[in-house]
Every structure is written in C-alpha cells, then in structure tokens.
C-alpha cells in the first residue's frame, strides 16, 4: 500500500500558518505513506496539471489531499484523480484551510493539529475502496397534478421543450381558483383573460400535442422512483369527449335537470349537463351524474340527442384506470380556504350576507350568480360592509402564519365597492396589514385613501361578533386598544386563511411526501430548494407548498419545470451516486428501524425476504440509516463504520 500525501499551500492561506517541513518529517514516517509533496494552488489550472502529472508518475494506491474544505474542491480533485487513471474514491481530503489555518493564529498548534488530522486520514484512506459510477435509463415524461396556474405554467414550459406531459385535474376544468376571479390584484386585470391564453395553449397551442390533459381524474397509486415512476390515474367519466366537443351548449339547453351551481356555492342554478361555468376550458360540457336522470333509472338521452356532433356525448362512458410511466412529478394541487364555520361568532352559514372571499369573488364575476352585481340577499345594494382580514391567519390555534394574499384581496374589494357602489362605507378589520412587493402599493393606497373606508385593528378573532336582530346586522368588536364598539352593517366579507387542499393529505401518503402541520407539502429546503420536495423527483409548485399569489404560483411552476428540464434530459442516463448506503442482506434482521428514518424515502421493506433494501437512485448518502441500524447491517459507502473508527483512532494516535 502506497499513500501519496499532497499538501496545498493555497497561496499563503495555508502555508502561512502550517509548517509543511515539520509535517513532512512526521508524516513521511507514518505506515504506508510513500511520499509527502507540497504543491501550490492545486485547484488552479496549473496546479491540477501538476497534481495529475505527479499522480501519473508515482501511481499511489491511495491519495490524501490536505487543502481546503472538501465542500470546496473535493470534486475538483476527484476529477483530477480520474484523469490520472486512479479511482477518485481512493482519495481523502483533509481540511487544512477552513478548519485550521483560518481559525487560529497559533502556528505551532495548527501544525500539531495538521499532523493529527493527517494521521487520521492515513488510517482511514487505506480502507477506502474503489467505487464505481453506475447509471440507469430514465424516463423524461412528467406528471403534473393540478391544472391551476402553477401546474399549467409548468406543463406549458415542459411541453415547449418537447417533453411529454400528463396533467391530471380533479375538476372538469383548468385554471384552478385563479380563473374564477373576475379581476386580479394588484392591477385589476381580468382574471379569465390572463389565464385563458395559457389554457388555450395547453389544449390547442403548437405544443398541445405534448400535453395530455385528463380532467375529473385523481392519482390512486404511485410506484417507483425518480426517473422511473409508474402512476395509476383514476379517470372518472365525463360523458363528453373534450377533444371533439365544440362547446356549442346545445346539450345544456336540452338537459331537463336543474341543479345548484357548485362553482357559485349554490347561489344560482345550472344544468346537470353543463359547463363548469361559461368560458371554462376545456370548452366542453360534462354530466354531473349524481343529478342526472339516468342515475335515477330513467333513460334520458336528451343531451346526446341534442348534440350536433356524432359521438361527442357518450352516455356509456365509464371510469377508467390509466397507467403512465413518468420520470418526475409536480404537485400543483393548490389551496383551499380555512373553514370559517370554526368561528361561529362570525355568523357564516347562519346569518345572511356573510360571505367568504371566494364567494364574494364569484359575486364579482361575470360568470357568477349575480352577473357582477354586488347585492344583498334581499336584492338591495349594501350601504355598509365589513371586510374582516386575518380570519384564522396569524393565530396559533388556527393557521399560525400570515396567508399573505388576503390583504390584497381585501383592498381589491374596497376598490370594487368604491367604484361600483360609490359611498358604501367599508370597514376593514385586521390584525396586521401587509402589502409587500413592487406592485401592491397601488391597491393599498387606493384603499386607505377611500374616504368611506375605515381601518380597525383587532387582537383576536374572538373579539369580533356578527349579530342579526330584526333584519339588522351588527358587528360587535373589541379593538386593539380594548375598547368595545358596534357597527350596523349590511354585508360581511371574510378573508379566511389560505390552507392546503383537503386532497393533499392523501397525495402526501401516496407519494410519501412530507407535509407540515397545516398540511402544506414540505419542501427540500425552505430557502434554497422550495420547489423540490424531500422525495427526489417530486416537485412542488404553487399554493400547495405555501400560501402564495398567482404570480408566485406561476413562477414556481416555471421553476419546477426548469428543475426537471435540468435533470431529466432525454437520452441522458441517470448517474447513481456512489456515496450511498446499502444493506448487507445477511445481516439485516428485518426490525424495520431504518424504514422510517430515511428523509428521502429510499428504504423499502421486502416482505418476501424480510429484509430492507435501499434504492441507490433515491439515496443521498446522508448516513441516517447507517447510524440507526442496530444490527450494523447498513454500510455507508465512503463513510463506513470501519473508516470512521480508523480515522478517529488515527487522530487520537
């Protein structure tokens, strides 16, 4: 065994503090050390050339590079090892710079510590083994769950790069919540007009051929791992062929069944055979089968008969299970609003004209129940309204965070009242007001300068109570200074906290993706990698990861697509990292301690053999399972127990 030791001077960074001559004298005598050489600026072009040349001439069996942190240049020197024809894993770095030269002014002690560290490295490096790089084929197709702004943006971005994309949407239409808003903050632009071009690209654009949109569908099973997922999708019957329906609405007119319009919260009616709302894309109707006469045993075929195109309405449509192979998955399942019935004092559900923000948005919408008119249940226009911010938000008993988007909605409603019903008194009740970002100031400014608007701060949602007596609604509240007041009013709009969709929990279970305590999907890292989940190959986009507005959802959709484009390149193989953990099958007792500790879900249990197995593609080599395995049946490549103990013994020698 022949160890070659290389000491990098790093300009004067290292050599100023550490006495290389003294080190040489001691280290040359360590067992197996063939030579100790000092080089300067090893990471530079010249330095690497010298290093490689030296390696070629001396052909050491193991190499120690004492230089900077391995975080800095381990990869650089590993590449050089490879270039010199030596397996890169036969090298051990010793951090002379960050952990030594930079943290002391005592040259003698630094030199002593340098010697001890080299002793450790010498003991460990002899145990290093050549590790190979394996690679596997990967599938570059992508599954996107959710066809809201984030999912659609990701789908289009990927499709434009010629990736095949499957978009699974649980509702009959695209656009998520955003398409249901008539006007969008911060600039009061038309919501459907913003979304529809994107949606049109998905179904009819030049890259639509790369996109397979499956509506009324849900994910029932996901197997496999990054680059090689097998997904089962349950597609519920729509009874209408979305590709050939031209949206003429003949079937709607023919349908004899009138039902509560779900998208407008039952505030108006629609047909059992109908669009989600007029203008929704794909521009195709669907049957709400639970209300259709056919589900009651009648053989109604009115819609099919009315349809001018043969075969578009298929009353025999059945539930199908579709299987897809994909390489990556984007979760873009969006959000819902906090259940305001948890605050019975706010009157929602039992006092008329108390609305959630989503309901009020529909009232503002051209496709809404009132055709854009703001009116009370009694048909009159409201004279006094309260907009209650922070309903559930910033409350440790409910949603312990600021939802971030509700203030802008509140200011938008203020604007609407001011312009549609001038003179309406608007009371904003809030815990905190936020309007961050370069575009938010406009609506904020217009709201605070609305002479009919008042802003009242409260401390606790329990300090507010809506009451109705003899047709007079009142808001009783205690303000932030503790004073009690009463306002008589006509309408209340609640701005509930943004919370994850109820389906998130099930998807989290299917995909083994973590959620935080509210149920938002957990990101790999909140600052550095908020678009990736902790499961390699599963990406996050939009408000399923954290409350966010449409702009940020779109941005995150693009980011998720970009992440995928950078790692799933057709024709490129997936390199499996060598520094991973693996199970010595014979030693595995099947106790399952490891199963739950892997943050990357790389460990599975084989029931047939009663042994755990680690998927090298998913394994990130963190070593958690290696430490946890009580039978010592798991080996962490490059950080084996033997190597670590040898290093400690060497350092202490």
């Amino acid at each position, binding site marked *: 065994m022949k160890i070659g030791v290389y000491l990098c001077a790093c300009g004067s960074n290292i050599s100023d503090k550490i006495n290389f001559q003294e080190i040489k004298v001691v280290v040359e005598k360590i067992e197996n050390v063939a030579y100790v050489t000092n080089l300067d600026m090893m990471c530079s072009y010249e330095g690497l050339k010298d290093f490689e040349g030296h390696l070629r001439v001396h052909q050491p069996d193991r190499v120690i590079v004492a230089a900077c942190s391995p975080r800095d240049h381990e990869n650089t020197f590993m590449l050089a090892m490879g270039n010199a024809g030596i397996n890169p894993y036969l090298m051990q770095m010793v951090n002379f710079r960050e952990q030594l030269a930079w943290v002391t002014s005592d040259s003698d002690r630094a030199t002593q510590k340098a010697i001890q560290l080299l002793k450790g490295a010498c003991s460990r490096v002899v145990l290093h083994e050549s590790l190979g790089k394996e690679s596997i084929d990967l599938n570059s197709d992508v599954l996107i769950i959710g066809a809201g702004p984030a999912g659609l943006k990701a789908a289009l971005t990927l499709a434009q790069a010629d990736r095949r994309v499957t978009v699974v949407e649980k509702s009959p239409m695209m656009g998520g919540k955003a398409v249901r808003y008539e006007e969008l903050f911060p600039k009061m632009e038309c919501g459907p007009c913003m979304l529809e071009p994107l949606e049109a690209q998905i179904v009819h654009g030049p890259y639509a051929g790369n996109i397979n949109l499956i509506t009324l569908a849900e994910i029932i099973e996901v197997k496999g791992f990054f680059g090689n997922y097998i997904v089962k999708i349950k597609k519920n019957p729509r009874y209408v062929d979305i590709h050939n329906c031209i949206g003429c609405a003949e079937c709607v007119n023919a349908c004899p069944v009138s039902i509560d319009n779900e998208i407008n919260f039952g505030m108006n009616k629609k047909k059992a055979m109908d669009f989600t709302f007029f203008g929704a894309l794909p521009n195709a109707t669907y049957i709400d089968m639970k209300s259709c006469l056919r589900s009651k045993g009648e053989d109604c075929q009115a819609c099919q008969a009315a349809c001018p195109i043969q075969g578009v309405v298929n009353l025999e449509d059945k539930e199908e299970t579709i299987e897809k192979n994909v390489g990556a998955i984007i979760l873009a399942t969006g959000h819902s609003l906090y259940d305001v019935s948890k605050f019975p004092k706010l009157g929602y559900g039992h006092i008329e004209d108390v609305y959630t923000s989503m309901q009020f948005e529909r009232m503002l919408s051209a496709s809404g129940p009132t055709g854009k008119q703001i009116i009370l249940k009694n048909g009159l226009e409201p004279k006094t309204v309260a907009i209650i911010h922070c309903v559930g938000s910033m409350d440790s008993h409910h949603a312990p965070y600021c939802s971030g988007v509700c203030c802008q909605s509140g200011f938008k409603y203020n604007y609407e009242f001011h312009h549609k019903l001038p003179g309406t008194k608007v009371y904003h009740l809030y815990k905190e007001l936020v309007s961050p970002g370069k575009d938010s100031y406009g609506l904020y400014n217009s709201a605070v300068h609305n002479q009919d608007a008042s802003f009242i701060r409260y401390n606790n949602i329990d300090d507010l109570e809506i009451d109705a007596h003899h047709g007079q609604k009142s808001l009783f509240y205690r303000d932030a200074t503790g004073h009690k007041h009463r306002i008589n009013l006509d309408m209340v709009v609640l701005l509930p906290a943004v919370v994850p969709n109820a389906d998130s929990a099930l998807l989290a279970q299917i995909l083994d993706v973590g959620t*935080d*305590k509210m149920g938002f999907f957990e990101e790999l890292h909140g600052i550095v990698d908020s678009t990736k989940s902790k499961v390699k190959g599963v990406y996050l986009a939009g408000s399923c990861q954290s409350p966010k507005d449409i702009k940020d959802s779109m941005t995150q959709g693009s980011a998720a697509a970009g992440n995928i484009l950078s790692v799933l390149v057709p024709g490129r193989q997936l390199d499996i990292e060598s520094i991973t953990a693996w199970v010595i099958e*014979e*030693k*595995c*007792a*099947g*106790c*399952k*301690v*490891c*199963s*739950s*500790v892997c943050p990357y879900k790389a460990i599975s249990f084989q029931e047939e053999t*009663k042994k755990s197995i680690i998927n090298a593609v998913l394994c990130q080599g963190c070593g*958690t399972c290696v*430490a*946890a*395995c*009580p*039978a*010592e*049946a798991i080996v962490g490549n490059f950080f084996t*127990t033997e190597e670590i*103990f040898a290093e400690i013994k060497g350092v202490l020698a």
Partner: protein
Amino acid sequence: MGNKPKIAMYWGSACGGCEVSLANVHEALLIIDANFEFVFCPCLVDTKYTDIENMAEGEILITFYNGALRNSENEQMAHLLRKKSKIIIAYGACSKDGGIPALANFHSKEEIYNTIYLNNPSIDNPYSVIPKTVTTVEEGDLYLPEFWDTVKSLDQVIDVDYYMPGCPPEPHQLVKVLNIFLSDEPLPPKGSYLGVGKTTVCEECRRVKTDKKITKFYRNWQIIPDATTCLLEQGLLCMGLATCGGCGGACPEANMPCTGCYGAPQGGSDQGAKMISALGSVIDIAPLKELPESEIPNYIDAILKDIPDLAGTFYKYSLAKSLVNRRVK
C-alpha cells in the same frame, strides 16, 4: 479415559449460570463424557490448580472460560489455561463482554468495598475489616486474590479463539459446538462467535414488526404486551434490535423483552451505543412539528424519563467491551 480429548470449564467472576447451562444439556452430558475427558470443572470435578500446572502445554483441547475477570486469580487462571489449552472459548456473556459483573466498572474498588463491607445497613463491621491479599494468623499467612479496580473480559487479558455468547449460552448450542470439534469439518475462523445467528434477535423473533413510532416507554410490570406485535413498538425496551441472535428469540417468545445477553452481533461495535442510536431513530418526533424549539428537549426528556437505569439497560452485559468501558472520574 485415556485418549479422549480433554476439555475444561473454568468458573471466573460469574453467577454459576454457565455451569447450569452445562448441567442443562441433560443426557447429552453422557455423550460429552463418552467423547471428552473433563480435566477441570470446579462444579463437576475436584481438580487442583497444581494438577493443571503439571499438564503439558496444549494438553487440553478446549477450555470453556466462563465468568469475567474480576481478580488476580481469574487472571492467573486465564494465563495458565491459555498455556495448557489448544483452544480457548470465552463462554457466556461475562467472559465475552464483561457481563453483569462489569457493571461494577461504574464504581471504583474503594466504593465497592465501602458498600459491601463498611457502609451498609445490613453490615456490622466495627473494626472496618476489608479483604486483604495477605492476612497473618497464628498458623501463618493466608492469601486471597487481589480484587481489581476494573472488571475485564477474557480477551482483554489473553488471546481468545472463539466466543459463545449468552447469559448463559443455550445448552443445545454447547452441544452443537462440541459436535463441531468431534466432526471432520474445518474449524470456523478464529474469533468467530459460535452457536449464534447471523444477525440480531429480531430475525428470530416471530413478532410482527412495522414502522416504529414510540411515544412512551413502559417497564415490564406496567403493561401486559400483546403476544404478536413487536415489543419495542408496544413501548417495552426490547434490546433484541441490537443483540446477536442465536437464542431463537426465547424471551420475546415468552412475552418478555430481550435484555441483550448475547451482546452485539459478530462484527458489531458497541451494543449500547447502537441501541441508543436506534431508539433515537424510532421515538415519534411527529409532534415536534407542533412545538416551539424551546419545548423540544422537554418532549424528548418526557419520553426518556421512563427508561430507568440507562447504563444498566443498554450495557447490562457488555460494559467491559463498550467504547466507554468504565467511569473515569
């Protein structure tokens, strides 16, 4: 007699359970006797130390050394038997890893003497008499072995060929091992554990294991565990996870958690440390998401407080061989 290979079993610092395991081979003892000659076994044969001293080097085929090394006599006998034996087997937990006697390494010799001979409610020792290596009486000097400060395992004193773990080893394993020496099969590599499973007790335990999320630990008397689920998952501190198999999972089979008597599996490093590491991985930390950082240690402490006697639980049989093998201060 005559040409039969000679075997010996020494009784070091131990409870006598290892001898019981020999007695528990029942009628197989006749087969052992037919094939081997017991030249030394304090519970069976009245052999004097001088008889051993007079034997030729390597005259004994196998010595089963049971018990830890607590005093100078244990040490002298270890050296003597090493010289006279071809093969030395560290027999039982005490010989292999220090066993229960090694838990005394949490105390100094002085503290132990103080508790046993001086300050103890049941002691009446007005002259503070403690054992001495030499006591002079009218008839002459009397000698006692010297009591050490630290209990050691056999391989910390002499070269050991094989190990048989267990407290005590299973009788059928003893018979199996003797059969190896009667057969023509090549002997296992030096240092092997004999009569053991390849991995931990969990492999032999028939209980159903799932993902472990422990929220509370119980002592054995506090609950009656169900008969089919992993005992650890029920909150009983079962050491089976980190303990070498070979016993057939006898304790969990009898609804009792494994106490770890076989020590770490062959090649394993530190049984107690591995168990601590594993427990750190299976305590349910999901509720931590709800807690502010300052509360996290309290949550963990509340779970750990139910584990009594941490060292005595995790290192019941293996303290002498553990990374931190005694109290230093």
